[in-house]
């Protein structure tokens, strides 16, 4: 038996969470289908006319992504909190910030990445031009990790709390707004034939901020929840 270095520890947590997600596929699939269904509701509720669809598509896909991400967050820390494994993570010799980052990464791979991959298809349903599809994919690729990183803070703060779902929405959705604004704007810009580079750069900057500060805040929130 040998003591583990940081990188293998990080990989071990990612592997563990991915294994768990694979064994309990319903969680990931629920998020995925929720996303698809919510997006499909909007044409039904508004109008199937192509010109209108093209206008609402960026916002619709992005809001659905926000909601799906938020639902999925409920399973980020709560199972580990309930069965005592989160305590073990907090008591390990490796920094909790690192382990939280590993958990968020695994979580995004399972709940965020599928949204990125299916979004172009949904974009086609909304009559988006090809250039906009590219922006949509890219914006979600940059934005959904942001959502996971920011949302993790809320997920940790609401551990073990009654009505965590609704409370999580209240806490986290306002913080999602900048990502929503720039993500949707990127797609809208492309739809109108304008460059989306600026918006995507801002998204990239937000992602960087989220990577640097998100896990720190989440780890602090986990410790508060455990104590």
């Amino acid at each position, binding site marked *: 038996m040998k003591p583990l270095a940081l990188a293998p520890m990080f990989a071990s947590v990612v592997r563990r969470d991915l294994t768990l997600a694979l064994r309990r596929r319903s969680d990931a699939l629920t998020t995925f289908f929720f996303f698809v269904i919510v997006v499909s509701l909007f044409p039904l509720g508004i109008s199937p006319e192509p010109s209108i669809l093209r206008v609402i598509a960026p916002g619709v896909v992005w809001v659905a992504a926000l909601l799906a991400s938020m639902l999925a967050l409920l399973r980020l820390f709560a199972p580990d909190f309930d069965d005592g494994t989160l305590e073990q993570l907090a008591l390990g010799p490796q920094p909790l910030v690192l382990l939280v980052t590993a958990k968020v990464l695994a979580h995004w791979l399972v709940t965020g990445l599928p949204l990125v991959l299916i979004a172009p298809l949904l974009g086609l349903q909304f009559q988006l031009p090809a250039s906009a599809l590219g922006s949509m994919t890219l914006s979600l690729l940059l934005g959904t990790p942001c959502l996971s990183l920011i949302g993790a803070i809320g997920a940790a703060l609401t551990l073990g709390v009654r009505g965590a779902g609704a409370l999580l929405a*209240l806490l986290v959705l306002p*913080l999602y707004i900048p990502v929503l604004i720039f993500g949707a704007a990127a797609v809208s810009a492309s739809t109108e034939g304008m460059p989306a580079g600026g918006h995507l750069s801002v998204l990239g900057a937000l992602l960087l901020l989220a990577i640097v500060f998100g896990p720190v805040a989440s780890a602090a929130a986990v410790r508060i929840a455990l104590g």
Partner: protein
Amino acid sequence: MALNWWKYAAPQTFYPLSGRLAPWFLALAAALAAAGLYIGLFVAPTDFQQGESYRIIFVHVPAAWMSMFMYVVMASWCAVGLALGTRLSFMMALALAPTGAMFTFIALWSGSLWGKPTWGTWWVWDARLTSELILLFLYIGFMALHAAIDDVRRADRAAALLALVGVVNVPIIYFSVKWWNTLHQGASVSLTRAPSMAATMLVGMLIMALAAWMYAIAASLYRVRSIILEREAHADWVRQMPEASV
């Protein structure tokens, strides 16, 4: 003469101090509000663009300023509490929240009242009003999180962390919303572009802002007193008070 401020960090010593100070702040608030409203309603000239309805800014703008200021103060107390572990800091933050939320609500409501006669609609998605709405959510989130956690100490710390995350995000949210607003500049003029300020108008707004500030301090002091009583109910000094009746 050096004052030992630290001794007021204990709820037991802060309680009587706040009891003596609060009425003064309330009186100041009333006096300033009277002066400010007098200026706002009678002294300040009629705006040549908006007529008399613009006078709502004497309530709207100070309320908006206070809502933002109070969030920062609340977050500062949260930071102090997390860093130093002083219980009173958390109580102070908790006491500030409802008043801050109230000012946010007043800002939104007065903004809406301003919009109707001026632009014909009850709500405009301009940058300032939208940001105020989001700020309201942040206040409510803080109070809801605190209320949802049973263990008071954990609730204090969790809500404090949330407030810090919020205060860091507020500039980001504000600039995002402002940028979003310029993008969709179909809706005419911003609701918050106040009429070109006559000096009296500015003075009126500042006095009202001061009045709001004094009121906020008074309300928070009263509120923190009842929080102290609630939390320290088991302590001897509380049980001996006339207020603690059972």
